[in-house]
Each structure stands twice: as structure tokens, then as C-alpha cells.
């Protein structure tokens, strides 16, 4: 690797480029899955690749590749250099960060690389068997597990020379229940970067997953309408990721004058008690990292403070263009992609209410629990729950299914009525943007309550 770095830096000097990056990446992946009682997948893979990105006067040239050698690096450099010079237009400037040499190794309590395949398989099989034997109504299951160890080398022409290593685990327990023609499903997803122990001891989760799949068989579809809703931590985390997180990504805003006016720092978006944060420095979460994929040191950013827009997420380019500081949020899912502005660990700060406080004075509403996912178009967004409960006169009532909620950024955040005191992070999710998915992120929130939320339904 040292020799390849030398070649890159020599070429950069010879061509006198303004700014350039070289990234090399090695990874090793183990995947195991069960589908029903069958073992569906047991495989290992290795990958090595890299990219070169060069800033021309007016734009970027980018080349990604698998072939890493002296000779090939010269060719790829030349390709990226030529591409960067084909772009004409307005001058493009970026923020600079100082030189840094560092090596970051995320420690794992229990390193999954030392655990035999057989042992990993056996543990997953235990969860699978718990779900399969829960009830005759459990028709099938899926248990999926992937561990990935990645080593990333990054150097740039400003003297950044950083190696980052980490292990990432993602998994899901999935149960399908069937009665007549009706098939219902439930899942529990998880992930983490601090070792194999995070997937140990999930026997209760497996039991709960199977139980919920069966219970949903007898739950009616929610009736569409406008409701006061209480979201659990998982769904509220997805909610804030979709409702506001994406709009905080400066690449949506920096070239759009009208959106800049709407997203001006100091503008009110929510009630005084709403605080929203993105923090890659939060220890031990899947969205945590020390340097982003432009070699910028990461930091905590308040997106909303006391209801007021107070910051946004940047790359070197968007920060420069908007005259704001870099935040270290330029990320790429792997070496095949250019870094773009992404979230890390995004969460709502805890408030003062208990769950009981939040539901106690609701005459008729919905408690929405768990998350299938969400999507945003900036102004409008959706987020879907795994299960819902009718709230009637302050108490939880019947289970309902297919609860999908929608909101509008200019009204829904203002309609947040209360924030709980029970912050939790979920780490099973991946974020998609610009064709790059899934990026490991985490979302967090306490229980929250929102009025006038549109819920779809027949």
C-alpha cells in the first residue's frame, strides 16, 4: 500500500492538481442465513478495491477499480485527471482541513473473526428453532446474519493519511405466520460495531418476533385518517431521520436558492423542547466514525436546538459553498462510490415525560411501534410501523396492522406535543441515498407524541 500511495502523491505533484484523494479498501464478509428450516446461505467473500478522486477547476473526476498495482494506479490517475478537466463551468472551491496521520481501530469486545463458522451457525439456528416451534401458525422464518471487517486507507494531497478498521454486524430475525389466505410477518433487526456479543442472547427477541407475527393475524387493518400518534423509540428515530435528517444534508440545499431561503439558520421548525442532533462521535454506534470519507475529523452537530434550525451536515464542498464549517459527514458505502453528505447517528434528545404521561390524555389515537422504514421527498415523508395499538381515553387498546404514516416538514415537527425521557438507539437500519444503500447509520429517540398525523388505510 505504501508504494501505491507514493505513486499517487508523485503523480499529484507532477500534474499540479488542486486537490486529490486516494482510497483503498479491503474487506472480508461472512454471510449466514436460514429460511424456514433450511440453511439458505453460508458463504465467505473477500474484496479489494479503491478509487481516485481529483478536483479540477470546475468539477470532479472519479475512478473506481479493483485492480490495484503500480501500473494500474498510473492509468486510473490519468483517467480521473482527464475526466476532471473535461468539466467546464463555474469555479468549484472546497474547504480544507489540515494534515493528519492516524490509525483508528474500533475495538470489538468479542471479535467475530475468531469465532468458528459452526458456532455462528449454531447460534442462529437456535433463534430460528425458537421461532419455528412457537406455534403451528408460524409458517416460515428467516434469520439473516452478515459480519464484515473493513480496512480503509485514505490519503489526500493535503497530508491526510488515515487508516480506519472496523467490524460491522447486521442481522434480522423474521417470522411469518399464516392462517387461511392471510400471511402476516414481524421482524427484529439489529446491528453493531462492537463485536459478536451483540447477537448473543436474543432468544427472547426471537420468541417475541414469532409471537407478534401470530398476533398480527387477528389484527384488523388500521382505518385511514388523521390521528394523534405516539411513536415508540424505533419509529420516532426513523421519523426524525426522514422528517428532518435528510433535509439537513447540505447537498440538497447548497445549490438551491429557494431551498436555502426555507432552510435558513435561525428559522423555527418545532416547539422549544425539540432538540435534534447528528453525532458520529457518539461512542460504539453503527453510524460512528472518527474520520469521514474525505478525511475530515467528525463532530457533533445540532440540527435543531430549542425548536430552531441551528446547523446542517456538510462535505468539504457544501461547507465552502455555504460559508459554514465542515462537519465530517461526507460518506461513501464503499470504494465504488464518491462520498456524499450523509447522516451518522441522528437522534432526538430526551425530554421530561414518561410514556404514561404521553398517552394519558389522548381520547382516541394510535401508538405506533417498530419500523419497516421510511422515505422522504424533503417536504413530505412517510414512515411505516410494524404494529399499532389504538389509544382510547388514555389507555392502550386493540392491536392494528399496516400502519403507515405521512407528514410534511413544515407542519409535522411543529405538531410534536411531547417528548419522552426514554432515549434509545436502534442500529438495525441502513440508509439509502443517491444509489448508495445500505449505509450503516443509527437513529435514536425517546417516545414522542405528534398531533394531526395522516395515517393511510382502507
Amino acid at each position: 500500500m505504501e508504494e501505491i500511495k507514493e505513486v499517487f502523491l508523485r503523480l499529484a505533484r507532477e500534474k499540479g492538481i488542486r486537490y486529490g484523494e486516494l482510497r483503498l479498501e479491503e474487506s472480508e464478509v461472512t454471510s449466514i442465513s436460514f429460511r424456514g428450516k433450511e440453511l439458505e446461505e453460508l458463504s465467505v467473500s473477500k474484496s479489494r478495491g479503491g478509487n481516485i478522486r481529483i478536483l479540477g477547476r470546475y468539477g470532479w473526476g472519479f475512478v473506481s477499480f479493483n485492480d490495484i498495482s503500480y501500473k494500474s494506479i498510473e492509468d486510473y490517475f490519468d483517467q480521473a485527471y482527464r475526466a476532471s478537466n473535461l468539466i467546464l463551468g463555474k469555479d468549484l472551491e472546497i474547504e480544507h482541513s489540515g494534515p493528519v496521520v492516524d490509525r483508528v481501530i474500533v475495538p470489538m469486545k468479542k471479535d467475530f473473526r475468531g469465532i468458528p463458522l459452526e458456532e455462528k451457525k449454531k447460534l442462529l439456528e437456535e433463534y430460528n428453532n425458537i421461532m419455528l416451534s412457537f406455534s403451528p401458525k408460524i409458517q416460515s422464518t428467516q434469520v439473516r446474519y452478515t459480519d464484515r471487517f473493513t480496512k480503509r486507507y485514505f490519503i489526500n494531497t493535503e497530508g491526510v493519511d488515515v487508516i480506519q478498521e472496523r467490524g460491522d454486524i447486521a442481522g434480522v430475525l423474521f417470522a411469518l405466520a399464516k392462517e387461511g389466505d392471510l400471511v402476516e410477518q414481524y421482524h427484529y433487526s439489529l446491528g453493531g460495531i462492537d463485536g459478536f456479543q451483540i447477537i448473543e442472547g436474543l432468544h427472547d427477541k426471537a420468541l417475541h418476533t414469532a409471537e407478534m407475527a401470530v398476533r398480527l393475524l387477528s389484527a384488523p387493518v388500521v382505518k385511514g385518517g388523521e390521528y394523534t400518534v405516539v411513536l415508540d423509540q424505533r419509529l420516532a428515530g426513523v421519523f426524525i431521520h426522514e422528517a428532518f435528517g435528510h433535509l439537513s444534508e447540505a447537498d440538497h440545499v447548497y445549490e438551491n436558492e429557494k431551498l436555502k431561503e426555507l432552510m435558513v439558520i435561525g428559522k423555527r421548525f418545532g416547539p422549544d423542547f425539540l432538540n435534534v442532533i447528528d453525532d458520529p462521535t457518539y461512542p460504539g454506534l453503527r453510524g460512528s466514525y472518527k474520520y469521514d470519507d474525505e478525511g475530515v475529523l467528525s463532530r457533533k452537530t445540532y440540527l435543531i436546538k430549542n425548536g430552531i434550525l441551528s446547523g446542517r451536515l456538510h462535505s468539504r464542498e457544501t461547507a465552502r459553498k455555504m460559508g459554514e464549517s465542515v462537519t465530517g459527514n461526507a460518506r461513501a458505502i464503499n470504494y465504488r462510490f464518491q462520498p456524499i453528505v450523509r447522516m451518522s447517528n441522528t437522534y432526538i434528545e430526551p425530554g421530561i415525560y414518561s410514556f404514561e404521561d404521553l398517552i394519558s390524555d389522548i381520547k382516541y389515537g394510535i401508538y405506533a411501534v417498530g419500523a419497516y422504514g421510511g422515505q422522504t421527498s424533503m417536504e413530505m415523508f412517510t414512515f411505516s410501523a410494524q404494529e399499532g395499538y389504538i389509544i382510547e381515553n388514555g389507555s392502550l387498546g386493540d392491536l392494528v396492522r399496516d400502519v403507515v404514516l405521512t407528514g410534511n416538514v413544515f407542519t409535522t415537527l411543529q405538531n410534536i406535543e411531547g417528548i419522552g425521557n426514554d432515549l434509545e438507539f436502534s442500529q438495525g437500519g441502513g440508509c439509502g441515498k443517491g444509489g448508495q444503500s445500505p449505509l450503516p447509520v443509527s437513529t435514536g429517540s425517546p417516545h414522542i407524541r405528534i398531533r394531526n398525523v395522516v395515517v393511510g388505510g382502507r
Partner: protein
Amino acid sequence: MEELLKKLKDKSIEGEIFFRKGDSTLVIFEANKLKSIESSESSGVGLRVIIDNKIGYASQYGMYEPDWLLDKAKATANIETKMKLPLALDMKEEDSSEELNKISIEELTELGKGVIEKVLSSYPEVICNVEIGKNKGEALILNTRGVNCFRKKASLSIGIHVNRIKGTDMLDIYEETTVREPSRLDTDRLLSKIFQALDASENITKPSRTQIPVIFTPKAVYVLLLPLMSALSGKILLMGVSPLEDKVGKKFFDDKFTLIDDPTNPDGLSRTSFDDEGVPTKVLTLVDSGVVGEFYFDLHTASLLNKEANGHGFRGGLSQPSPGLTNLIINSGDASIKDIISSFDEVLVVDQMMGVGQGNILSGEFSVNIHLGFLYRKGEIVGRVKDSMLAGNAYNALSNIYALSREREWIEGTLYTPYICIPELTVVSKE
């Protein structure tokens, strides 16, 4: 690859080598101007072995270490199977046009500039993003029983995104097309759709009632198809959770509805005569005038179900084969889309949605935000419908179709579909 094949044969291990290579160029315009030019080269190899009726699998991107692959494939051989690798099939398929190969980065750049100029000359207030991609790919499948299949493909794609903001009202319109022959890239067709949507979105409106006829544009049809695509997969059949399992040979859908998967369609991007396991592909009639037809399988899934493989084992990247579809074709109807719209006092035409696929797909239930939808009254467009949810059940909807349009369009080069009109679905809007 021959070396690895020889190692397998020497050790009398039944095995299959899958080699994949890609080469792409992407020209990206952001906020009306050229922003970056990307190129990518990739290559990798996957090895599948069958030892004592157990499958093992290992793969590598960016390196090729035959001994590592063989060791790891053997070490992972745990998956019980009844499959046998297919016997000798020797095929070469070169599905990439000369004309496409010759297109330069400069020409792609000019194409993008031209599109943006056309947009801005009519709508100077909008922001336009354009991505143009040229993709080339090769796949080679070799096995110890004599399969030697090679496929080469190339395509050209353009995606156009237009954003307009008025006050706090945001409008985003997306159109894309992917073709094999550059001469078939019709950007004017995409632009005319975008311009029509821009004009129609000047006014925001709401349906007068919650139960209303809905027309899905070709772009929106996936929300109705996803449950079927899933339910007809051999994997879902194997799990015993396919709602269509006991409907085979029975009329379950509207008799106006026919759906086939056609690997031979000359216009479909997924045209191929063999799948990623070296099995000859077959045209599958998934639904025939409402009657449920065939499921689709890879070799392993078919073997577990004691079914014949039907040439539908495909891979994403270097992952193991799984049941996959090629070119989905829905039959057209008799009426023009204009006539269908005009036949209602009030009808919602849905074009873009958010939240598709997030939920229990198998059950057919959908509940999506109408990201881009238009209300028509007596054939005249009234305005855009937003802040609203559309909900229904895809199986019910396709069992009661009001009409399919005469016009059909290709979506992402792999779905050829008419507009589909459902007589009644539920729309909930903000008060």
C-alpha cells in the same frame, strides 16, 4: 478460470465458477451544470461447490486466489441440496451495440447539456439534475459438467430530475429510460412528461371523496406488481407462504390481466438465452387472463421443491443465484389513456409514490404517500394531489381492473406495462 476448473476436476469436486466484469461511465449534472464524471471498472469471481449434496460458496472481488476460493468453498459446504449442476451448454451471447460502444464521454456530456437547455428555456425557475450512464458488463459461467456460457451486455441510461419550489410547496419530478441502442434514447418523450407535470402542478387540489377511481401510470405500476413478483418466487413457495400457491390454474385475477416474464423480448434489457447458472431461459406465463400460471426458480430452490428449473436463477453482483425475473410484460388494453381518464367524473392519476415496499408485501396491502399525482374531472386536469395517502390491496386491485390502456411503456428497461385503472381505492388527505 481454467486453472480453477482444472483443480476442481482433479479433485473430482462438482463445482461452478462465475466470473463477472463491469465497466461503466457516469456523467453527473447537478443544479443545471456538469458536476462530475465517474468511471468504474470491476471484476470478481465466485466459486460454488457441491460436496456430498451440500453447497459451499466463496467469492472474491479485486483478487483471484484459486486456492483460497477452493478452501473456503469447501469449508462452507453445509447447505443441503438435491440440485445437480446443469450439463454441457456452450453459448456465447454478445448483446452490445457497436454504436453504443463508440459513444464518448464528450457526447454524453453534450446530451446532458441539451436536455438541461430544453428544460430551462421553457421553465427557467426550476433546478434540473441529470445523470447519464453507459454500462458494459460481462458474465462467464463455467462448470465441471461442461457448461461454458458467456454473456456480454451494454446499455445507456438517462435520469432526469426537476425540482421547483414555490413558497413551501416543493415539486420533484423524476423520469428515466434505459436502452440498448443509443438511437432509441427518446429524451423528448421524458421531457414532455416532465413539462406536463410542471404545468399541472401549478394548482394543488384534493379529491372530493375518499373512495375514488385511480389510474397507475407505467412508472407507478410496481406498487401493484411487487406482491405478485414476490409471491411467484420459488423461495416464497418453498417457505409455504405464497398466497398464490393454491391458486395455480385457477382464475384469481381480472381476466383482462396477463403477465409474462419474457427473456426473449428483443427490447427488454434482461434479454438472455441462459441464466446465471447456465440453464436455458424459458418464457414464463405468470398470469394468463387472470389465471395463475407458473412460479420461477433457480436450480437449488427447484430441487428442494422437486420442480423443474426454468432458467430463472440470477445473481446480484457475486451473490449466490436466487430466483429472479427478466423482462416483465403486461398485456395492453383497448382504450387510450385519454379515453379512460375522460370516462370518469373524477379520477386520480398516480405517477410517483413514497413508501412502496415498506410493509408486508406478501399480504398485498399497500399504503403510500402520493408524491406526484393529479386529479382529473371529466377528462380535464384540475391539479396536483399531495399530503395524501393512497391505500389498498394489490391482489384485490388486480382482481378488479377497470381498464388497461392501449399505450405501453418500458420502465427501467425491464417492465413493459400499460396504465392500469382500478375502479376504487382509498385516498386519505390532510384536513
